[in-house]
């Protein structure tokens, strides 16, 4: 779909995205935005989980406290990574939409799954140790 005529100059930010290609189907950009928001919610879930885990560290024994802190420290950099990487693929997705190219894939799904598995194992270990 080409840009409608009589439109004021496109000043939308960032130019690295909106300066490329043509205007995509209006359904696609909000869909991309919703995907971004879903990732943000996932990251917020990790923040909440990290806080909950850190809070557990203060009620457990010393050994459990150390283990829980390790789990929290695994969660914390991960959610930072999520934030950092998210800001890139959203741009890439929107740019691909505008150019009519294929959408890029993301490494993040297996990473998220892997981190969740590691955290679950640590949690199991803690439950086992605290018995």
């Amino acid at each position, binding site marked *: 779909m080409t840009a409608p005529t009589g439109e004021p100059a496109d000043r939308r*930010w960032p130019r690295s*995205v909106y300066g490329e290609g043509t205007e995509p189907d*209006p*359904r696609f950009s909000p869909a991309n935005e919703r995907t971004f928001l879903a990732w943000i*919610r996932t990251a917020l*879930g990790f*923040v*909440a989980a990290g806080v909950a885990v850190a809070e557990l560290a203060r009620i457990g024994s010393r050994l459990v406290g150390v283990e829980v802190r390790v789990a929290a420290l695994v969660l914390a950099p991960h959610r*930072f990574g999520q934030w950092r990487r998210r800001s890139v693929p959203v741009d890439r997705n929107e740019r691909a939409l505008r150019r009519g190219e294929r959408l890029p894939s993301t490494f993040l799904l297996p990473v998220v799954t892997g981190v969740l598995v590691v955290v679950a194992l640590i949690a199991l270990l803690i439950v086992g140790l605290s018995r």
Partner: protein
Amino acid sequence: MRERYASAGVQNERTRLAWQRTLLSGLACALLVARVLASLWVSLALAIALLALATTAVMSWLVIERYRVNHNALVARRQLPDAKTPFLVTVLVALSVVGALAYLVLI
């Protein structure tokens, strides 16, 4: 115009709902942090809770505005809004992550 708007279906509404869910998640997260901090440092916890409420209020207003702009753009075949609001959310989440890391290091 009408055809374009109809083909967009309820995209705009779904997007607004996704924004509202995200804002609620962020608010819940911040209030959880405030609740946890309350036993250590009451005034900081209160400040975080108030800041979270104020931020959510401002963001809600931005989301309503975005919905309106989207709606008008779809009906009048104008350009959809750009990426400033998503970027703002990203910055807010990043700030809260920095705060959470500081808390982890300090406890």
